[in-house]
């Protein structure tokens, strides 16, 4: 039982991180950003490239920083170009798809498809924590994700910049009219999203190792969290909770290879019956 709770927490930690990475571009920039999957992979690969020269901590900081810059550049150079179009959301979806292909295969071209792992501590049997067996790295993951929930909540719900982000998410034209730099806010959102993606990717790289295509599944889980929970920070946390419970309880009754199918069935059910998620306000089909 304790082990199931621990596993649920661990999954939840991953989902929350990728959920945040997906949430900001989704709500603020109004686009489904699949290139986040590329950033999830980019983060840990940058760590293993730079870590031999500047140490692990330096590598992690460099990776997060450069992924954030990459997210910023992507938004500035590509997405802002199409942001005036009526078909913006579809164009952006396709651009992010193209970007995902480029990032993923670029990484595979440079590093090959072998599995790497970020070396942190030597692999050792996990420790007993409140009756569940967790390794040091898994404890770190849970810790980091709790800290990021607090940071994200503080940024998004308390600070002025969070209000601006949410305002742009709701009505960008009105924001423009009252003098908010809408383009700048969008770039900020995209950068923060990419940064979260890098953190998530690095944690995955520490835990189970990385391959170039590692980002895709976490991204889809993050997307599911956002849809299930609703487009708020606490909503994403709730979504992550529901999803990880569904997956872990699913294991008890259904074979483990069906975990993904369970998760996406939850997604489809929510999309059809409660598209605004748990905590979201009803989604309007159109805004006039």
């Amino acid at each position, binding site marked *: 039982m304790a082990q199931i709770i621990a596993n649920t927490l661990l999954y939840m930690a991953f989902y929350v991180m990728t959920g945040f990475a997906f949430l900001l571009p989704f709500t603020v920039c109004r686009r*489904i950003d699949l290139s986040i999957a590329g950033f999830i992979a980019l983060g840990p690969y940058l760590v293993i490239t730079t870590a031999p020269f500047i140490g692990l901590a330096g590598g992690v900081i460099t990776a997060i920083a450069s992924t954030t810059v990459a997210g910023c550049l992507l938004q500035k150079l*590509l997405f802002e*170009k*199409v942001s*005036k*179009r*009526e*078909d913006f*959301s*579809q*164009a952006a*979806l*396709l*651009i992010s*798809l*193209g*970007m*995902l*292909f*480029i990032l*993923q*295969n*670029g990484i*595979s*071209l440079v590093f*090959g*498809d072998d599995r790497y792992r970020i070396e942190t501590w030597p692999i050792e049997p996990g420790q007993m924590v409140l009756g569940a067996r967790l390794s040091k790295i898994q404890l770190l993951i849970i810790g980091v994700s709790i800290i990021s929930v607090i940071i994200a909540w503080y940024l998004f719900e308390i600070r002025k910049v969070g209000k601006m982000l949410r305002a742009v998410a709701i009505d960008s034209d009105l924001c423009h009219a009252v003098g908010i730099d809408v383009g700048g806010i969008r770039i900020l959102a995209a950068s923060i999203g990419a940064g979260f993606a890098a953190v998530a990717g690095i944690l995955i790289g520490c835990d189970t190792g990385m391959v170039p295509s590692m980002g*895709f599944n976490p991204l*889809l889980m993050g*997307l*599911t969290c956002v*849809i299930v929970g609703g487009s708020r920070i606490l909503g994403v946390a709730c979504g992550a909770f529901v999803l990880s419970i569904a997956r872990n309880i699913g294991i008890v009754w259904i*074979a483990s*290879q*069906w975990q*993904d*199918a369970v998760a*996406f*069935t939850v*997604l*489809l059910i929510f*999309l*059809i019956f409660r*598209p605004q998620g748990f905590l979201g306000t009803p*989604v309007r*089909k*159109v805004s006039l």
Partner: protein
Amino acid sequence: MDYLLHLLILTFIFSILTVSLNLLVGHTGLFTIAHAAFFGLGAYSSAIVGTKSNAPFYIGFVLGIVLSIVFSYIISLATLRLHEDYFAIATFGFQMILFAVFQNWIAMTNGPIGIAGVPKPNIMGWVVQSHFESLVFIGVCTIACWIFINRLAVSAFGQVLRAIREDEIYTQALGKNCFRYKSSASAISGAMASLAGSLYAHHMTYINPARFSVTDSILILSMVIIGGAGSRLGPIVGAIILVTLPEALRFLGLPSNVAANLRQILYGSALIVCIIWRPQGLIGKFSFRKDENS
């Protein structure tokens, strides 16, 4: 020679896929990333019927088409109350679920090993055996699909679809049941993709889940966009380019894994370039949604 015929057949099969996807993406303005799932649905229906029973080949076709219609209706429920973006997400979810089924339902689909020995179709005594016969059979199906979709696009039904693409609220105000039109369009498109899948299974005689992954859905979508969504010939041009280009790269003599990566990078770049600088595709006249400024 057989290799060329085989390429031509693949181009035909992908043309069915792109032409049917065009009905959704180009004409209705709905983005779906589940086309490979429907493709797989048809392929697996035909393969399972062909290998596990003695039923005539068209039973597999019909089974695939019926399943596709049912599933596409369920997915299109997601568009009922939501913006089109959510439809893309719903199709994404469906693609992943169906891929998991292909991969994990070992008893039925043989899992990652795939199904081998799918019999060639027997049409009233004519067994479609050689590559050339396959080409004729599949070519006829492709042309029929192409004519059907083009007739549909200019019919009253197609006009309503384009009206939905341009302005859904306005179309609704005219008294059209937009949901019914959208769900019918996605059902037709899904059924046709399933038909392509059945043809594929019978032609290749071996299928495995790798052909029906989300990457392939994206590939089919890129074909439509690069060729020109909403145009008559655009999707076919897209299919021709993206089927033959990788084969041409093969002659450059690159190591196979490098070539595969380069190919994907090429797809990605082509998609981005197309969307930003030529949203109407290579030979399309219109962008898939009109510009705000135009």
